[in-house]
């Protein structure tokens, strides 16, 4: 028997309460251990899709399953353990007065206490190279450091899949590279939402293009980025002077 895919999204459609239809039937799966980039221009529905992956938004139509478990009212607690969502703005993600408490927040909600909690916090911070900031308040850290701590807050929940919304945004080149090294070193399934095409190429073998609320392309990142017409059709552009070949 093979393990179920880490993530399976089928025919997912969603309209916001004000009537804006953001997703029109999204289909894809991410196998265990894969690192996949979800590419798409602004307004494509990327963030809307991400919010469905851990049940913050409830599908209008279609289903999402994480490691075989369908997202639904009864499974929310387990789903939120399995899906580690890293939000775009680390100031939204880091809401506790100290790094230690912030990283502990998730596992503590799952009922982890005492030494096991301490171990998970230290382990997660170690994996992102931020252990020495454990007693600092998050707002005293640099932006790049905050983003790394934000990754640690979900790693501490030992998720099945790590979902990052625009992880490279607002990072300077050095922080960007450091984060890439950290992400490459993790042994978890990753779904990375971005419109930073070189970053996708650097980190992910496979890419999806979400455009107009549907999956418009799915294939090896190198191949997708080499298809200039495909990119142009979906308002995606490589930076000046960059060629993927």
């Amino acid at each position, binding site marked *: 028997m093979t393990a179920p895919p880490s993530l399976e999204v089928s025919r997912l459609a969603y309209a916001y309460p004000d009537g804006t239809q953001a997703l029109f039937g999204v289909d894809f799966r991410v196998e265990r251990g894969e690192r996949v980039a979800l590419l798409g221009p602004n307004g494509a529905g990327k963030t809307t899709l991400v919010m469905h992956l851990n049940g913050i938004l409830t599908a209008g139509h279609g289903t999402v399953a994480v490691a075989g478990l369908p997202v639904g009212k009864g499974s929310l607690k387990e789903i939120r353990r399995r899906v580690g969502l890293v*939000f775009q703005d680390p100031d939204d*993600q880091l809401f*506790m*007065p100290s790094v230690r408490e912030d990283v502990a927040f998730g596992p503590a*909600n799952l009922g982890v206490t005492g030494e096991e909690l301490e171990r998970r916090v230290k382990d997660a911070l170690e994996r992102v190279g931020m252990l020495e900031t454990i007693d600092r308040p998050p707002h005293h850290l640099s932006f790049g450091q905050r983003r790394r701590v934000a990754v640690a807050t979900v790693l501490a*929940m030992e998720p099945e899949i790590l979902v990052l919304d625009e992880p490279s945004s607002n990072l300077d080149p050095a922080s960007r590279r450091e984060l890439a090294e950290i992400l490459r070193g993790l042994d978890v399934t990753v779904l990375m939402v971005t419109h930073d095409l070189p970053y996708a190429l650097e980190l992910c073998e496979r890419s999806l293009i979400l455009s107009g609320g549907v999956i418009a392309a799915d294939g090896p990142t190198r191949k997708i980025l080499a298809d200039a017409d495909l990119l142009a059709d979906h308002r995606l552009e490589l930076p000046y002077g960059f060629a993927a070949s």
Partner: protein
Amino acid sequence: MGAGHHHRLHRPGDTLVHRLPPQCKLAAVAGFALVVVATPREWFWAFGLYAVLLAAVAVAARVPAGFLLRRMVVEVPFVVFALAIPFIGIGERVTFMGLSLSVAGLWAAWNILAKATLGVVASVLLAATTEPRLILLGAQRLRLPPMLVQIAMFMLRYLDVILEEMRRMRVARESRGFVARDVRHIPVIARSAGALFIRSYERGERVHLAMLSRGYTGSMPVIQDLSAASRQWLVAGMLPGAALAVLLGSWGVA
């Protein structure tokens, strides 16, 4: 670190007072304040003894007098108010250095000044020896309404973020040539304040989503074990205990 202006009250250290669990210190300060307020204003020497007790705590916590004095500025409005009372008070009057002062007003001023000063010094000592977030965790342990404690926690965390947003908005206004000079500019400032409110509100919504994503179900998980040993309660109880002894002792004398 230049940020974190609200940490200026805290003076890190590793004394007996610093190490006491926050809930013990909070309860001690509250108990002390109750005793002070209950003391009749005529008992000058009782107030003197209370001051000695606080001085002893300050010595034990290695908080220098200068540090205390500088942080007592919060009391200035009380002082101004208290100084005004003898002038505007009614009834019997005395003349002092050519000024006609109300006797009842003098007593009222003394009452406010003495009690407020003792209360402020006790609070400054608490803040100097306890990290702000620990004060809040202590309040939680003392069964203060969890919703209030959570709100205060978020204020502590986001004050800097909001102040920074405010600063950015001011820079944006001024770099387009706007300088607030007189009342005609109030509408502009008001609109900025409105925008700031909406930004903060939206941030609140996003933070809530981030909390839900990590399994939040309405109550903050207990992360730090803050249980206090009875010995620690005894140590903290020394301040209000001694003050109470002074009060009861004075009652015997008076």
